[in-house]
């Protein structure tokens, strides 16, 4: 399975990459524009992402805007509901308003920073994203 990690903070990106690598072939994007470019490129090359880990708080284009644009892009390509990428928002503590907005825009779940390996694995299990789990 393929995942796109969208995270502007170097350390957070590195930690998430480490935790997700056993489960996914991971790409990284450091801002919203790069994320959309990567997402569309992968889609158009028939190599779609199964999951996107999307930071909410990013400069310029934030995670909520990226989420909305991804869902609009999928909608334009007639990709609906369960056929779309699983989008997991990553967020700081006490960010329930933004998480609720993200649910309304069509994310599947959220992970709270600082990242904990067990929580991330549980989230993958919850979303049925652990089929490729390595021993």
């Amino acid at each position, binding site marked *: 399975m393929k995942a796109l990690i969208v995270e502007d903070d170097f350390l957070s990106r590195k930690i998430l990459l480490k935790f997700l690598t056993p489960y996914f072939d991971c790409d990284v994007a450091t801002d919203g524009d790069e994320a959309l470019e990567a997402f569309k490129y992968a889609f158009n090359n028939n190599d779609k992402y199964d999951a996107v880990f999307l930071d909410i708080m990013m400069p310029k284009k934030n995670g909520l805007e990226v989420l909305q644009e991804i869902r609009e892009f999928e909608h334009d390509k007639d990709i609906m509901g369960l056929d779309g990428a699983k989008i997991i928002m990553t967020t700081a*503590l*006490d*960010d*329930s*308003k933004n*998480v*609720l907005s993200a*649910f*309304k825009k069509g994310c599947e779940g959220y*992970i*709270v920073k600082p990242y904990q390996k067990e*929580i991330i694995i*549980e989230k993958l*299990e*919850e979303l*049925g994203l652990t089929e490729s789990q390595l021993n």
Partner: protein
Amino acid sequence: MQEIVYKNIDKELQITFNADYQNVNKVVKNILGYIETNLIPVSAFDIGVTLHELLVNAVRHGSASDNTKIVHVVVGTESGRLYIKVQDEGLGFDLEKKLCNEKSNVLEPHGMGLNIIKSLGFSLSYNRINNEICVSKELSN
């Protein structure tokens, strides 16, 4: 092993399921189906998010992700309100402390889940004896 059991008793939907994330998704989907079938006037989005937060919390924290443990859910309506009760086999936690004390674990992931539920307009209560959380919301007639 028992997985999910549904009972429709006295206008209540009662569900028991083994504490497993895949069961959570099935239970949420079936409760939403029950609400739609019975024309209960509540937002499917609000109920879906709330159920998901409550049930994931019951699996992760109440059952320590042990799928031999059982989670009980009851959904019904009374006096113009929808209620959802979730009971697990865990040790429970101090809900009031979690919601009111800034230095408590309110900022933990499941604490944020409770804040999300509150922001959707649900009232919360917690029965420490039965280790049961109950949320309710006025029906949108």
